[in-house]
């Protein structure tokens, strides 16, 4: 094992390359910029291409093209930039082009954006929310695997602390098991054979070999996302079995919550925590189990209450759910305000656990 001191951006860049990413596009936006800069430095040396996309829309569509041609490909941005990509992310979900979107956001106010899309049609985006840089390294690699496994765009949802904190990490390629053959890829060899290939959201097929068309295709896509929803839920939890109070949080905020809850438990509180690792699919069944018997299900997120919806849908007792998070933004607008801090969180949790 050899540790390198990398910030989140560089660590994810290394991890992406280790996972076989060979095409990357990006447009600067804090705190995503670091990952872009690292990719522009590191990817060419690995035989890949990193393009300074002229805008987020061009970037995501370049990535879609590269993925359609068979490359492991990725792009990323944050906030407004992700908003601009929604059309293409939906398109890729519906025409089954796999790639990774690094959503290194300014805060947690984009949970709906990540989990409910905002593109069009019935699609969902597998979204992993690592709590720290080492986990981001693992998630990055896992995401390329999941994208190929399910032929779908997938997302990593991070924040400035994840993107910019430097930690000693050891990035090693990881094997997540076999994958289906990429026999759908456009390689240009189909022309004139009567079996030329097509990637098309409406799946109308060729005249000599009609596809399922939008109805059949989109129903199949909906079924696929149902399958993914069943298969890919991931979560972590601790001390929930006898807990009167379970605190639910994701991403960086969850790391803080773990710390605070551990402290409260040490002081004798019957409290535990639950962390959705996949924001979509939301680990609903696990949350239901984990909150069975809990009198308080507290949701801590740094926004006006977005994951709250998913917790309300799945918590064992919906009426036990209380929101203890809130909007908290730095003066610069670029990171969190004072609520992302262990003492403040402790206060909120104690206030909520009545």
């Amino acid at each position, binding site marked *: 094992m050899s540790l390198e001191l990398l910030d989140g951006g560089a660590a994810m860049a290394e991890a992406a390359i280790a996972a076989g990413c*060979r*095409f990357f*596009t990006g447009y600067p936006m804090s705190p995503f910029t670091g990952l872009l800069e690292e990719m522009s430095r590191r990817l060419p040396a690995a035989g890949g*291409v990193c*393009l300074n*996309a*002229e*805008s987020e*829309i*061009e*970037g995501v*569509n*370049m*990535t*879609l*093209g*590269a*993925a*359609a*041609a*068979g*490359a492991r*490909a990725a792009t990323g941005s944050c906030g407004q930039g992700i908003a601009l990509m929604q*059309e*293409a992310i939906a*398109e890729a979900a519906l*025409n089954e082009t796999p790639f990774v979107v690094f959503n290194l956001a300014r805060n947690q106010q984009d949970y709906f954006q990540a989990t409910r899309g905002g593109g069009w049609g019935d699609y969902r985006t597998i979204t992993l929310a690592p709590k720290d840089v080492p986990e981001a390294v693992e998630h990055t690699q896992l995401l390329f695997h999941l994208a190929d496994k399910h032929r779908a765009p997938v997302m990593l949802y991070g924040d400035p602390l994840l993107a910019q904190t430097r930690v000693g990490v050891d990035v090693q390629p990881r094997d997540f098991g076999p994958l289906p053959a990429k026999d759908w890829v*456009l*390689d*240009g*060899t*189909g*022309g*004139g*054979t*009567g079996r*030329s*290939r*097509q*990637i*098309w*959201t*409406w799946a*109308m*097929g*060729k*005249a*000599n070999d009609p596809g399922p068309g939008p109805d059949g295709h989109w129903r199949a896509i909906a079924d696929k996302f149902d399958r993914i929803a069943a298969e890919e839920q991931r979560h972590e939890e601790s001390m929930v079995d006898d807990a009167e109070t379970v605190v639910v949080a994701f991403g960086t905020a969850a790391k803080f919550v773990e710390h605070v809850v551990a402290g409260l438990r040490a002081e004798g509180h019957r409290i535990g925590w639950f962390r959705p690792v996949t924001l979509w699919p939301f680990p609903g069944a696990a949350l239901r189990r984990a909150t069975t018997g809990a009198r308080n299900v507290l949701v801590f997120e740094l926004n006006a209450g977005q994951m709250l919806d998913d917790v309300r849908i799945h918590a064992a007792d919906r009426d036990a759910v209380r929101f203890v998070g809130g909007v908290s933004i730095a003066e610069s607008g670029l990171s969190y305000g004072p609520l992302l801090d262990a003492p403040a969180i402790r206060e909120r949790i104690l206030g909520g656990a009545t």
Partner: protein
Amino acid sequence: MIIDTSGPPVLPAKQVADFKPSLLLGEHSLCPGCGEPVALRILLEVLQELDIVQRTIGVVGHGCYGSFVRIMDVDVLQCLHGRAPACATGIKRVRPGVAVFTLQGDGDMANEGLQEVLHAAARGENITCVMLNNGVFGDTGGQQTATTVLGQRTKTSIDGRDPELHGYPIPVADLVASLRGSAYVARGAVSTAAGVLQAKRMLRKAFQTQLDGAGFSLVEILTMCPTGWFVPTAEGPTYQQGTMEQTYGIGELVTR
């Protein structure tokens, strides 16, 4: 006297032109008198003549020509409206040995995706973009695009395009030609047989430019849309000559 044309001639004769290019897998459903199928024909013929059919990927935008995806026997990505040059860029960078082209309309390229094509050209991206310019959104029923000529009546400029209200038409090929990454840029028209042949030569040069690795190439082809122009099909070509071809001019703008 009407000659029997129901089958091949009985007298010794050589066939000099066939119905449709062999790369077509079926019928198209475009309107009578539409110029787009003619452009499709010459595009496919060029791929065959250059012998690159089995190393070509097309990227097709949204417009009436979008339905060609079903009948072209070529590997195709049907992409989002306006984004073909970006998608083509991704494909080309990942598969530099493949010829990559886009097929887009004026609504697709001059409206929704003007930025994509200009950036791709500036980048000198080694792809070939084909724009079918009929000066209207055909597929949605004939509204004004950025290339609609002055005075043209459309469903969203019912009294004719008025520069005071709606501005001036954009000559896409000229804009592209002014960028340093462009290696071949031309504008053709399919309103006459000679025009079709000229447009075909342009397409051929454009693909050759790409095969030579020389940089970005674009062919803008003016095509009739009698439906969107509200003119009888037979008048399409002359209407086009008097309006679009006057406004834009035909010819090669960049050769390198």
